[in-house]
């Protein structure tokens, strides 16, 4: 082998040059680790929830997929009389809308299988008085994905090689700037986005994340910090539309919903089921292709028979909700939630006493046509923009928001 014949000095010089970039990489990884630590990404979820509660901080991770374990910790550490359970479509409901202690469990129930697990978690933490269960219209569609991966629900390993390399990758890809890294390394603990204490890199760089009550608002899009994705509902009417249509109903899933409701009721909880609305434009498109959404219409019919405390708002006209009040075709904003909650309060006395009805009315009076009204994390200079590109005027500001 000719490498045996190499002079030792040449080989050593070769190894030195080989090692040089790796040593640099090592120091880069070290800085990356420091950045992760300073940004709060390496903290335990218990510590994160504690800091959020103390300092009203936002938690927006860019590294982990930890929605479920985060909400589990929230359930255990934030006793609530009323919880809102659902997918991302449940996230805009915030504590200010309620007079009783409230926790938002949005993103904990993304399918009927997730729902079962979330109900286990709720019961394990002590059943609340009221659970508002937000059902997604595609849940009974046999073609939609139901499986729950163990990584969806288990707490992620906080310090992993993937996590260590992630900030370096983002620097290379331009998703993170050197200034942001340096600013974080020398910032207070926790660092701030504007005046808002934040934990997690997404919080640091975009000012977005879970609030202490578990709610989450898409500030990035709403205030134009990042380019909007669903301009003119283009994605909602194409990709998403394709994902959720279907003709085959999976009745097993309906049984899971029924069983989840029954278990909560047995524990003394009032379960209010809600089918939240889609944007008027999307609803019209769904209605124009009724055969494609056969599972949705079936789901609506089943639910009215399944739960006496059921509210079907899929048709946004029932709430007078406008396109402009949506974050995208499927996610209503806070105004849509105000309308939903008021409609529920009219029929459910338990809810009317739990809600801050005056505030909800004030939201509608001042801010119809907007997605957000109660955002304490908005920068004072920021205003809601026409992020859907629909020509929405976005006028009015809540005094408290």
């Amino acid at each position: 082998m000719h490498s045996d014949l190499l002079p030792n000095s040449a080989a050593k010089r070769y190894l030195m040059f080989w090692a040089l970039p790796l040593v640099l990489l090592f120091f880069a990884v070290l800085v990356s680790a420091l950045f992760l630590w300073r940004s709060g990404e390496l903290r335990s979820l218990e510590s994160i929830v504690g800091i959020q509660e103390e300092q009203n901080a936002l938690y927006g991770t860019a590294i982990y997929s930890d929605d479920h374990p985060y909400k589990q910790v929230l359930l255990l550490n934030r006793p609530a009389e009323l919880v809102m359970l659902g997918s991302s479509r449940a996230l805009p409901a915030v504590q200010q809308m309620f007079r009783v202690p409230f926790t938002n469990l949005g993103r904990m129930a993304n399918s009927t299988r997730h729902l079962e697990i979330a109900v286990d978690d709720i019961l394990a933490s002590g059943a609340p008085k009221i659970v508002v269960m937000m059902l997604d219209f595609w849940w009974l569609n046999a073609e939609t994905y139901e499986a729950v991966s163990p990584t969806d629900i288990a707490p992620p390993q906080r310090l992993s090689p993937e996590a260590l390399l992630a900030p370096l990758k983002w620097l290379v890809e331009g998703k993170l700037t050197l200034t942001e890294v340096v600013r974080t390394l020398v910032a207070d603990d926790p660092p701030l986005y504007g005046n808002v204490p934040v934990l997690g890199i997404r919080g640091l760089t975009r000012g977005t994340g879970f609030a202490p009550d578990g709610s989450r608002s898409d500030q990035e899009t709403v205030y134009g910090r990042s380019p909007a994705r669903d301009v003119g509902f283009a994605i909602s009417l194409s990709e998403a539309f394709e994902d959720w249509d279907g003709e085959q109903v999976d009745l097993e899933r309906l049984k899971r919903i029924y069983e989840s409701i029954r278990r909560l009721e047995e524990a003394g909880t009032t379960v209010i089921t809600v089918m939240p609305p889609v944007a008027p434009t999307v609803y019209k498109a769904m209605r124009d292709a009724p055969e494609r959404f056969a599972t949705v219409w079936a789901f609506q019919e089943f639910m009215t028979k399944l739960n006496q405390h059921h509210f079907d708002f899929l048709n946004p006209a029932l709430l007078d909700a406008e396109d402009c009040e949506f974050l995208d075709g499927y996610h209503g904003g806070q105004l849509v939630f105000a309308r939903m909650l008021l409609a529920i309060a009219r029929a459910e006395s338990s809810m009317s006493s739990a809600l801050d009805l005056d505030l909800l009315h004030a939201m509608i009076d001042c801010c119809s046509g907007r997605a957000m009204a109660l955002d304490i994390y908005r920068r004072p200079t920021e205003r809601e923009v026409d992020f859907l590109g629909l020509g929405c005027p976005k006028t009015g500001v809540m005094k408290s928001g």
Partner: protein
Amino acid sequence: MIFSSYPFLLIFLPVLLVVLAALQRAGSLSRCYVLVIASLGFYAWYDWRYLALILISAIVNFHIARALEHRAIRKDPGRKSLLIGGIVFNLGLLGYFKYVDFLLASVNSLLATEFPLLNVLLPIGISFFTFQQIAYLIDVHDGTEAESSFPMYLLFISFFPQLIAGPIVHHRGFMQQVRHGLAGLYKAPLVAAGVTIFTLGLAKKVLFADQIAKWSTPVFDAASQGIDLPLLESWTGAISYTFQIYFDFSGYSDMAIGLGLIFGLRLPINFLSPYKAVSITDFWRRWHITLSSFLRDYLYIPLGGNKKGRPRQYVNLMIVMLLGGLWHGAGWSFVVWGGLHGVALMLNRAWTRLTRFRLPAQFSILLTFVFVIFAWVPFRAGNMESAVEIWRGMVGLNGIALPENYADRFGALLPLVAGLDIQFVDTHLFHGVNQLMVFAGLLAVVWLLPNSVKFIGYTFEGGPCTDRPTLPGWRPLPLWALGISATFILALYYMNSAGEFLYYAF
């Protein structure tokens, strides 16, 4: 823990390197102990229960070898029985852990019985360390000196660079180096060559094999669901897997040799540009060389090799290849793969014997390559139903389909194309012209570039190294060092999705 993983590269390897660096001036025995402990730790990482198995296997074989040696001195006629006992022990272990469920399932299927499967845990690398120890026992029986130190023997069995997927190491060559105090001893020229060849292997695995797997896996998954695959999709799966396993095994073999060099030990060459083979016989001199040698020396020749007439030679070839197939996996599809290669070897021998006509080298290479692609199908498919599904597609029995967006490209020729019964479908299995260009690029890599060991100038006991280099070889220059280092970092960057080595399954 696989070589292309963060725990191995960022924790296990640096820690071991540092510990051994501290022991460079200490006795060679201490370095050996560290390597043994590290190797057993590496093995136990998969499942601690494996550790008990490899230790029991090593202890039993070590003592059988010692007994064989003692009896050789006394010229004890019972030596052969002891050897047979040792082989039965090893094959029994392998048979139980790897084949018992296959056997039960086959009996149930053939005789309509309902013997419950035992669901035995398959210890990783068992096929490799079992064969290594069988060869050792036979060598000791035939007069090789048995190893007298158990820790040294354990290092021979468990040396982590070759423990999981080979190469199958011969005792003599390996222990000579260990006895010379080379294990764990850093020699700058060897370490320089080692890190280079290791990096090339890592790049092959992460940047090539794991990326190509994203094309092959969906096709084989679709076949396993009984989906009729059209011509181009089927070929996409078969060709992708052909490249995937090439870069996977080539990458692993490079990394094993590279790690061996870093730790002062040379391992045998196991992979030598097999897709450049001009015949199937040549292919088996280049693919998994140490397994081929083992099967030749310990099975084919004892069966009589080519010394007992032509028909017997063909039978011997077929037996060797069928068992070679079964060694790769407990399933009939592996037996079929071995059988196909057996038939090809017989045809190749017969052709060579019966005619003086020789095909042009380039055509021979192409013919061999196409056969190898066809043969990989059952190997990857895991069951014959899926394999037949893909074969049907490859010969056009499921028609031809092109991506939907290609319809526009034919312009006025579209009616003609439609007349040929070509469908335009929404496919995610065949990726069009871009994919064909990638295949062409990969083909250029495997056919035109020198293999890594030739590139570095590595030899092992005069092992075969016959390809003429088509590029200037590696030199220990700073620019090369920076390039190799950059490749290493690139591989680290893309390593998130790195899958296990395919040969780990065997």
